[in-house]
């Protein structure tokens, strides 16, 4: 008997190859998108961890400067007085290359003898073309170049290279090249010099950027207790607080997007399998009638589902693998844009992801097949044969679904409002809202159709009424398809609205922050002093209305490393938008040096509130500074606080500056002023000049690049939804061959029939598109107010514009119509006799 059953399955698919094709494509796409996103995500995560680990090595602690730089005698004290053998001195800077003004590369000064057992810069082997380490140590002006950079510059070992440091051109000798870090990833290493060379090149004699240490707990405690002037000991896991938290949040977001693709994919799998079974309910009913047991029937359906799932999963894995290759580049570019200046290249992802994808594909397909198989087996043979029973069931189901949706919505509201402030809770809520939306769709569709029927039915004529009522009448098949389309379009809408909100907020923020017209930023470790003569010269440029000065230093604190921006505002003020605190009082306190403004990211991540005291280490001891306000901050780097420059200079005894903002008068020609500024700076000191419009343009470019991956996923979700609709419509068309035959016999023209069908699918699209508007808006609100806030600590204004929503509606209708074209064409060609003979 079972062989007979398998034969029946096989024959069905042979007769309906498109059904098989769509089933396989649907499952394959679902698996593929999930696997692709996960692979890309995992690969990026590994690359990220590996690069971080390679740079960090076995460093357990860092001795960081309070203020600008460390006195190098601290290093001697650590080694000799405290008997710590595993300590490596570091000088870090960014330098230019004279022949390539567009290139700026990190320069790292190390003591090659102290790298062993601490960091992987021992990977900078001179072994192959790496040059002579003795020369690197003993000869001034010698460097090792990253291999890729050397190739790009044509700088072979032995040649000279001109670096641009602090505005001076300095010739160095290239001793050799350094291979990329690590075995299966390629993070670009820095230009490497001996610590003595680095000090000489940068004019940093006697100073270090930091000391990397490998310490036991005991050693760390002793060292932390020792009094070291101008230095503070920080465990490395605490140092990169903002950095690692952001990276983790970014990954969580991607995983959620992958899951979203899977949800849409599962809809498709479920839809496809249900139709494949439903379509044969007559056959199955007959089989039951001739004595096939329920168990045999279920078994047969599951075997069939298994075969389909296997083929589809294999294809899906291959597709996912291919997809990942493209996606991983996008993910890495985003990580690079957000967190690194150096490029990170992919690492091999975990092979378990393929297994996961396979399990999901097989599992979802079998589960999707189980429900219709059970339904078919459970019903009495006679009932199965009648379609009316099926539709009644579907409508009953819709009522239950509505109830379930309301419960889900209430639950997710509760979770979001009362649950812990965790990212996964937020995503849980988001998925619950989506699921509720999907469950509500069939009922909403019926309501919508009833409304259209009442309002317009009479005026539209019989074909339209048939189409309108047909939508509700065929809910058993169209319900799932419409829900899938609604969820997919809602995702598109939600992400679209979120991006619009974000981009608008970012633009506003840039406008607020970039108060000056031109910005000068200084290279190097920040030992450029605010030279009064230089400042006077800049002020003297025609059209300059005033200057603002900034000194940014990384300060290690109990809350991780914090960027302290010491600012002397120009005539246009601080350029900060307060999101918390009373502006007038806050800015007065800030100006008088009585407190700091903290970025909202810091406040959020460390659950701080106004009035809390921030403890900052200064060369003269710890200082408690009250937080008088929180400002909006879309930076992705370190958490930051703003302090009055005068207070900073007093406490830190550091008179360096890292940036000058130049305000121009309204009548000034900014291009002429910019050139004059460049001329004034040329030959004086190392500086980069950028206009505020240039910075804004660059920021938005980075923003757009960051969200490219999101757009790719939106498109994929839409494709999956489209396939779902296509498969549902094809199924309906097949089922209704008889009905269509009757309609033809009653005098419907082929064209009229096609029009009716297209109207029906168009209405499906309208229903899904309309449903996706509130659902997408809710989704966007969640993304803006909950997900992004919990991920990144960014607050942004929620901007709802009609444009992305209308585009979503159009997309839904277009997808539905496009999916309806082929079935409509087939329906119009239905052969009367053949169709009616089925009776």
């Amino acid at each position, binding site marked *: 008997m079972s062989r007979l059953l398998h034969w029946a399955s096989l024959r069905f698919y042979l007769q309906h190859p498109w059904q098989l094709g769509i089933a396989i494509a649907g499952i394959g796409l679902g698996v593929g998108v999930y696997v692709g996103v996960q692979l890309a995500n995992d690969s990026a995560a590994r690359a990220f961890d590996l690069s971080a680990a390679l740079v960090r090595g076995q460093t357990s602690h860092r001795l960081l400067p309070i203020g600008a730089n460390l006195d*190098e*005698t601290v*290093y*001697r004290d650590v*080694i*000799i007085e405290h*008997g710590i*053998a595993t300590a490596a*001195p570091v000088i870090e800077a960014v330098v230019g290359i004279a022949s390539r003004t567009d290139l700026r590369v990190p320069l790292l000064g190390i*003591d*090659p*003898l*102290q*790298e*062993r057992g601490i960091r*992987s*810069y*021992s*990977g*900078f*082997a*001179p*072994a*192959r073309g*790496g040059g*002579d*380490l*003795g*020369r690197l*140590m*003993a*000869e*001034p002006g010698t460097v090792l170049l990253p291999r890729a950079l050397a190739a790009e510059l044509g700088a072979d070992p032995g040649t000279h290279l001109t670096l641009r440091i602090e505005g001076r051109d300095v010739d160095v000798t290239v001793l050799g090249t350094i*291979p*990329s*870090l*690590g*075995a299966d990833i390629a993070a670009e290493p820095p230009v490497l010099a*001996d*610590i*003595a*060379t680095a*000090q*000489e090149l940068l*004019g940093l*004699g*006697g100073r270090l950027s930091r000391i990397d240490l490998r310490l*036991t707990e005991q050693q760390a405690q002793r060292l932390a207790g020792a009094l070291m002037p101008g230095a503070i000991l920080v465990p490395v896991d605490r140092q990169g607080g903002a950095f690692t938290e952001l990276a983790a949040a970014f990954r969580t977001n991607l995983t959620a997007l992958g899951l979203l693709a899977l949800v849409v994919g599962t809809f498709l799998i479920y839809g496809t399998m249900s139709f494949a079974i439903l379509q044969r309910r007559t056959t199955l009913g007959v089989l039951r009638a001739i004595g096939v047991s329920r168990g045999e029937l279920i078994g047969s359906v599951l075997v069939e589902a298994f075969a389909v799932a296997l083929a589809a999963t294999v294809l899906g894995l291959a597709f996912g693998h291919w997809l990942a290759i493209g996606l991983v580049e996008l993910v890495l570019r985003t990580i690079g844009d957000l967190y690194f200046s150096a490029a990170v290249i992919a690492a091999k992802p975990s092979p378990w992801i393929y297994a996961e994808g396979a399990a999901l594909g097989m599992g979802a397909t079998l589960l999707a097949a189980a429900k219709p198989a059970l339904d078919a087996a459970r019903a009495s043979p006679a009932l199965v044969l009648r379609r009316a029973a099926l539709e009644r069931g579907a409508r009953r189901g819709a009522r239950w679904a509505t109830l379930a949706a309301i419960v889900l919505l209430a639950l997710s509201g509760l979770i979001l409002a009362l649950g812990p402030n965790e990212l996964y809770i937020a995503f849980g809520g988001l998925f619950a809202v989506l699921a509720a939306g999907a469950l509500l769709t069939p009922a909403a569709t019926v309501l919508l159709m009833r409304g259209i029927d009442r309002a317009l039915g009479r005026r539209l004529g019989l074909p339209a009424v048939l189409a309108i009522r047909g939508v509700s009448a065929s809910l058993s098949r169209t319900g799932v398809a419409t829900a899938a389309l609604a969820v997919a379009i809602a995702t598109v809408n939600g992400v679209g609205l979120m991006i619009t909100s974000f981009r608008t907020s970012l633009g506003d923020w840039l406008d607020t922050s970039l108060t000056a017209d031109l910005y000068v930023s200084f290279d190097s470790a920040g030992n450029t002093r605010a030279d009064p003569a230089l400042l006077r010269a800049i002020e003297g440029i025609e059209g300059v209305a005033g200057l603002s000065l900034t000194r940014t230093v990384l300060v290690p604190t109990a809350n991780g490393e914090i960027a302290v921006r010491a600012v002397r505002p120009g005539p246009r003020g601080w350029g900060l938008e307060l999101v918390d605190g009373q502006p007038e009082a806050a800015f007065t306190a800030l100006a008088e040096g009585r407190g700091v403004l903290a970025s909202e990211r810091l406040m959020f991540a460390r659950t701080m509130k106004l009035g809390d005291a921030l403890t900052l280490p200064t060369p003269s001891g710890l200082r408690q500074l009250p937080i008088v306000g929180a400002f909006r901050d879309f930076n992705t780097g370190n958490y930051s606080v703003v302090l009055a420059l005068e207070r900073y200079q007093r406490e830190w005894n550091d008179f360096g500056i890292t940036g000058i903002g130049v305000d121009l008068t309204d009548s000034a020609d900014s291009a002429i002023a910019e050139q004059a500024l460049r001329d004034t700076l040329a030959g004086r000191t190392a500086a980069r000049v950028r206009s505020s419009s240039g910075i804004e343009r660059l920021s938005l470019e980075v923003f757009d690049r960051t969200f490219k991956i999101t757009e790719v996923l939106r498109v994929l979700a839409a494709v999956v939804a489209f396939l779902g609709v296509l498969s549902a419509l094809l199924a309906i068309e097949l089922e209704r061959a008889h009905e269509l035959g009757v309609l033809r016999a009653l005098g419907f023209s082929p064209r009229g029939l096609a029009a009716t069908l297209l109207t029906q699918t168009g209405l499906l699209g309208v229903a899904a598109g309309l449903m996706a508007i509130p659902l997408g808006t809710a989704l966007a609100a969640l993304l803006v107010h909950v997900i992004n806030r919990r991920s990144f600590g960014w607050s942004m204004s929620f901007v709802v514009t009609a444009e992305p929503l209308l585009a979503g509606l159009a997309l839904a209708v277009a997808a539905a119509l496009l999916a309806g074209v082929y079935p409509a064409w087939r329906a119009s060609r239905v052969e009367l006799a053949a169709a009616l003979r089925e009776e």
Partner: protein
Amino acid sequence: MRTALICIAAGLLSACGADSPEGAGDATGASTGLRFLRSGDDAPDFSRATEARDLRFPADHGSHPDFQTEWWYFTGNLTAADERLLGFQLTFFRFAVRPSGPATRGSEWRSRQVWMAHFAVTDAAGGRFLARERMAREALGLAGATGDPLRVWVKDWSLDERSTGSGFGLHLEAHDGDVGLTLNLATNDEPVAHGDKGLDRKGPEPGNASYYYSLPRLAASGSVTLDDEELPVTGSVWMDREWGTSALSEGTAGWDWFALQLSNGASLMFYRLRQGDGGTSAFSSGTLMGGDGTVRVLRASDVEVSALKEWVSHTTGARYPAAWSLRVPDAGLSLVVEPVLAAQELDLSVRYWEGAVRADGAWQGNALHAVGYVELTGY
């Protein structure tokens, strides 16, 4: 002959090269090591040991920075108060990466001298061998050497002169986590110069030689720290001093070096330069120091050494001889030398075997025994 030549050169490199992602391992390390040495050969500005000269003290106890390599080598078999036998090695190596040149004063870190120190303790009864390393450039007071009074240090490890009116004295200090050494050394003996008044030739090329002297029996007392337990110890320590500018000759694979304190008061130093084909170089040599102050130079042909056993290192896979028959036929001396523990391999920036040994045998028919140290390189 000691490890320093290859040691420091290869040490420097492997500190920065052994973990190369291209994973070239030993072969690369060795080849670059040799290149490093050749860079010394290419620099004629280094002083070379070309002719015999009288050693002068205390000046020659101190550093000779114009020569490329130099070391202060201490090995000894100590006895703890609980009769436990403890071997130790403490060595300070100096290696000049460049001959003297124009000084640049933009950075205190600029230096042409690199220092490395090795410290190992052998706990024979406990079956333990602990080896540690320090490395630093001669800058900021991180490492260096001063003359009268003598002081040599690499980071927090040091040797300090503590001479008394009548004799020469030293203080050794080396601690690293759970293992450490604090030792006072004293002797009234004169240093013994090896080779021709201290000029010790290593190959046929002129200048392929070093200045080499020993103080083979310094009375030692102090303490060894093991597992945070400080054990009072006494014993006899062998000190070697060598400096020069030379590389191994073509075809030389490594060496086996013996330093033995015989129970009749005599001391024996002999190094066998091994050739790639397993043969013994004609430049192998040694010194037999009688307890009465007589000194006899030993040529390659005077000494017969053969390995009796083999030991394979679990960590590096290297195969080392693990017992020897050592004979000086025309002196009537014959010894069987055995390590107190097979596993005394130092797998640091440089890999070699240096360990405490015991020996039994006879001298002109009289049974005797000996303690000492053996060094094996190039395995």
